[in-house]
């Protein structure tokens, strides 16, 4: 054994001890390269999801049917851009920069949540995204507030608080529509029919088909398996659907007295695979819009840099 090996071993032991004791790893601490790479991938994917996720709801900003709803939706879009900023900043503590991550997003080298590759077709979709998509995101993200990597965990605390506002706003919109006209109620049911299965797929593939889960759980980046979180989401959502008066589009949905949870059907995993591969209904359009914004804004960013440089020089 060489000196470097034993040094490395000691660092690794200390890292394992910190993680094992549920303490936080901070940016200057030693960490295994694979841990760093996993976090960069996950945080970047999360940041990209916030930014791309502005598009489906943004589709209804100009048409929101009351000024109050317009203000709520605009505040939400602003929060999402803010979440993107915190998350890119958390990723930057791991030695990457935002511009590089943006390039990877628009080149298709990094992913974002597949849920945003579905179209928003009526204003009720805004409510259903708040209720189901933000609800699923909360189930996924709340455990991340205790993630082993400090900057990510702290960003998630703030993000989860705001996400919970968004979820309630979505649900309140749906309650209002369900108390409204026949056309409004039909709009809600149609939106639930379209978003239910994609929402269940937000938790990722079944545990048997999720190769990274075990290691991420050992590192305390992930706290629960995909199937555990999916079950928790279904159990939380079914009573809300009943209260709302909508039907979830799953004939297999049934209360299981024995295990105290809801049984539910199998999502169409082959469809999810197609969406992940880039063949979803909106993949190309979502990335193209992000690319266009980035490229159209290049001259603005260059001007800001040039101006900062001039100021720096004249201050010398």
């Amino acid at each position, binding site marked *: 054994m060489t000196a470097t090996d034993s040094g490395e071993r000691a660092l690794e032991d200390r890292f394992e001890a910190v993680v094992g004791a549920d303490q936080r790893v901070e940016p200057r601490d030693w960490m295994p390269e694979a841990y760093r790479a996993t976090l960069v991938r996950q945080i970047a994917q999360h940041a990209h999801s916030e930014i791309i996720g502005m598009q489906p709801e943004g589709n209804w900003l*100009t048409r929101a049917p009351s000024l109050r709803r317009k203000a709520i939706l605009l505040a939400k879009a602003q929060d999402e851009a803010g979440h993107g900023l915190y998350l890119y900043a958390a990723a930057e503590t791991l030695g990457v920069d935002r511009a590089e991550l943006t390039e990877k997003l628009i080149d298709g080298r990094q992913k974002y949540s597949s849920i945003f590759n579905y179209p928003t077709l009526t204003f009720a979709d805004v409510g259903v995204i708040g209720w189901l998509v933000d609800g699923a995101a909360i189930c996924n993200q709340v455990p991340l507030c205790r993630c082993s990597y400090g900057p990510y965990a702290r960003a998630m605390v703030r993000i989860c608080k705001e996400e919970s506002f968004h979820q309630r706003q979505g649900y309140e919109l749906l309650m209002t529509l369900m108390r409204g006209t026949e056309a409004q109620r039909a709009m809600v049911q149609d939106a639930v029919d379209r978003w239910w299965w994609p929402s269940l797929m937000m938790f990722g593939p079944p545990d048997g088909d999720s190769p990274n889960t075990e290691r991420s759980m050992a590192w305390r980046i992930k706290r629960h398996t995909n199937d555990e979180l999916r079950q928790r989401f279904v159990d939380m959502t079914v009573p809300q659907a009943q209260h709302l008066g909508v039907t979830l589009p799953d004939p297999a949905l049934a209360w299981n007295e024995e295990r105290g949870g809801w049984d539910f059907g199998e999502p169409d995993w082959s469809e999810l695979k197609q969406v992940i591969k880039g063949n979803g209904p909106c993949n190309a359009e979502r990335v193209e819009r992000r690319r266009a914004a980035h490229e159209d804004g290049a001259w603005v960013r*260059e001007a800001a840099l040039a101006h900062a440089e001039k100021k720096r020089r004249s201050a010398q």
Partner: protein
Amino acid sequence: MDAEMTDDHVYLSLAEAGPEPEGEARWAYGTGFTDPLLGVDTALPAGVDGADLAVYCQLLGDDALVLSQRLIEWVTCAPELEEEVALANLGLDLLGQARHLLTRAGQADGSGRTEDDFAYLREEQEFRNVRLVELPNGDFAECVARLLLFATARHALYERLATHPDRVLAAVAARSVKELAYHIEYAGSWLLRLGDGTELSARRMQAALDALWPWLDELFTPHEVELRLGVDPSELREPVLASLAAMIAEATLAVPTAQPRAFVNGRGGRHGVHTEALGPLLAELQVVARAHPGATW
């Protein structure tokens, strides 16, 4: 598993709130509407004509609403994430101003019309905004130029209106003046960066100022209602132009010399005679609301 999930405090607090969280103060976070004016005396002051005040509130409210709609079109298209946040923020400020002003219009004329009645159920010819705010977006330099021109003029106006005898209008103006000070700061900082950035950005910033400048004067052209209410906007022309000229010079750009755009038989946006850009903007803004007459959202 249960024990491990007990410290998921955010999730639990959400679940505890129950399925119908209406009436919770923090709930519509960032979108508060009634609070800022709570307790403000809504009675019409002596000597102020309700019908005139209602029209005046529409002039100002429509400016804010239409510019807010144009800013909203920037969402997901901004050059940088910081600008996504900032432009949405400015759009929210203007939307909030519009909501207060249009609500006041419905109180002042005794019609009881709501903010949504004004926004969604009026025809294009009934909108009274200046033409500057309805022009299509253009590039980021045009976004900056329009914000700068509008915010500088509106800030100067609201400073004066903060002491208006109508308590509601005065309260809206006092609150908005702080927001508009930030809009000027934001637009001014980009005017400087683009004007004194690269050769390309300077050219684009100058072109944007040149393109929008001819629409500025409409903000200083009095409507008969403004004269009757004693709020003549032509008094703003000189101080606003001086303030703009100073900022433009600092950005190493030239103050445009183009003449104001003419009216149509003496009538412009304030009288419901708009550019071709307003119709499509309103069609989009109003489409869902009009497809469901009488529905509540």
